[in-house]
């Protein structure tokens, strides 16, 4: 799920008329000092990483003057939070907070509708503190979330008077931001009450990956389907392949980018591509017990172009330290001859002499599978001792076993050499 960084989320809130603390992101201590001079001390320094629990993890600090800022910002820039290196800080004017609430709009699969949640007590550990006092309402999208809905919701949390109206207005605006930006979650926590009214002190936005193409303005490298961590360089390169071409998909995620997991478990890293997520997972289930660990997961389905296969195959094979490559299709209706042409072009370009020098098992099952297999013969790739082609009568277990046997032969020759 694509996640926006806090400063990006706050820009959306500001555009919708929701107050946020004055501040800007900084990429260095010098920039942080300049921003603090502009907005005035005291300031909050907040690590911009796509992860929650930053406060507890030491990712938020406060500074009352330039000396404190230089010292604390310097420490934060060297910090890693939940495996994310801190590359930027949000420098904000520190708020004088009277109370902290929680407000969120989330896509609720159980209700099959957006749900708006408000809790009187927000801030750190809201999952525990709001367990008993949170109120919520599911939104009928044919009606929308209107001011009277928001007033009713927040009144149920025991809030009344002017504050009730101010908070209800924020809730309506947050719902608009959620809708306009195809969010799965739009969360303000804490929604700080100050003398000037409610201010979004922190924000978290998770976006619907399938709608990212509608928001080319979300340029953050954090946006992507790699969960809570940042994309690896190869994942960023692979994401551009899909972004530039809507025809079929090439979802590429590195499971073990550094190879550390494979090394710690004594497994062999390999490159992997599957047509269909189900067959990919089934094949991984067969490969792992045999001592292999795919360095990546990749799904190239939905009838992608051959050019897309060419590009993603180059990405998969660029991974260092892989001792092989497995391609497998499900019983697919996609044009497997196109799939094969992309792989053939990539193999011919990247492998010395056009023939793989690492074990490669390719299994084509489905539409035009025989044409697909014939292409590897036609272009001399099947002549390589390290290539095994398999057809429609093959099971995932047989593919994994064939790879194991081929890898064992390749390994013994490598050791002998």
């Amino acid at each position, binding site marked *: 799920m694509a996640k926006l960084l806090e400063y990006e989320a706050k820009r959306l809130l500001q555009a919708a008329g929701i107050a946020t603390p004055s501040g800007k992101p900084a990429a260095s201590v010098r920039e942080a000092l300049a921003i603090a001079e502009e907005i005035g001390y005291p300031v909050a320094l907040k690590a911009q990483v796509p992860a929650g629990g930053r406060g507890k993890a030491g990712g938020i600090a406060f500074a009352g003057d330039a000396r404190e800022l230089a010292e604390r910002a310097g420490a934060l820039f060297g910090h890693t939070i939940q495996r994310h290196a801190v590359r930027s800080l949000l420098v904000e004017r520190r708020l004088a907070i009277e109370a902290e609430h929680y407000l969120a709009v989330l896509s609720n699969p159980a209700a099959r509708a957006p749900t708006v949640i408000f809790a009187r007590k927000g801030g750190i550990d809201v999952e525990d503190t709001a367990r008993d006092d949170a109120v919520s309402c599911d939104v009928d999208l044919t009606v929308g979330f209107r001011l009277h809905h928001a007033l009713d919701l927040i009144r149920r949390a025991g809030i009344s008077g002017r504050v009730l109206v101010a908070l209800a207005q924020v809730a309506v605006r947050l719902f608009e931001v959620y809708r306009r930006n195809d969010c799965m979650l739009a969360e303000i926590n804490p929604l700080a009450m100050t003398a000037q009214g409610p201010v979004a002190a922190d924000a978290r936005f998770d976006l619907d990956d399938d709608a990212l193409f509608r928001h080319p303005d979300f340029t953050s490298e954090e946006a992507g389907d790699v969960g809570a961590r940042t994309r690896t360089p190869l994942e960023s390169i692979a994401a551009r*392949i899909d972004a*530039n071409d809507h025809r079929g998909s090439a979802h590429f995620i590195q499971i073990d980018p550094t190879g550390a997991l494979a090394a710690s478990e004594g497994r062999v890293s390999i490159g992997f591509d599957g047509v269909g997520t189900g067959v990919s997972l089934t094949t991984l289930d067969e490969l792992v017990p045999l001592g292999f660990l795919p360095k990546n997961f990749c799904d190239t389905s939905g009838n992608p172009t051959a050019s897309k296969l060419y590009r993603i195959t*180059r990405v998969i094979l660029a991974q260092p330290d892989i001792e092989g490559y497995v391609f497998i299709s499900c019983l697919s209706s996609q044009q497997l001859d196109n799939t094969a042409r992309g792989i053939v072009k990539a193999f011919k370009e990247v492998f010395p002499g056009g023939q793989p020098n*690492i074990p490669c098992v390719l299994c084509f099952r489905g539409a035009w599978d025989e044409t697909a297999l014939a*292409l590897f013969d036609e272009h001399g790739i099947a002549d390589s001792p390290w290539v095994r082609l398999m057809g429609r009568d093959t099971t995932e277990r047989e593919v994994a076993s064939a790879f194991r046997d081929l890898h064992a032969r390749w390994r013994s020759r490598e050791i002998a050499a």
Partner: protein
Amino acid sequence: MTRGRLQFSVFSGGEVIFDLDTCAQCRSKACVAACNAPNLACVLMLKDDVPALRMSAQEAARGGCIECLACELACEADGIGGITFSLPMPELDAYLRDMDARGEVPGFKRV
């Protein structure tokens, strides 16, 4: 008289170039046959004994060419090498250069 080039862009970012002087000498015209297979796009036709587009270059670039690579691979297998189908990946090239500088070896360069 030189015949020049047939050149068009493709939707995903890339370019196809036919060297028509080379194509004129090719007996197989395998690219045209491959492009006109029943399941492919039929972008190419023969005109004056060399490949030509059935559509405008703009239509081909908007997705008329489905980037199946059949023309290029058929040319490599049965033709005389008149086609260049370039699909640039500058970010990957830069990544590979960085890997090289770090002394890392991509999987495909493993010896």
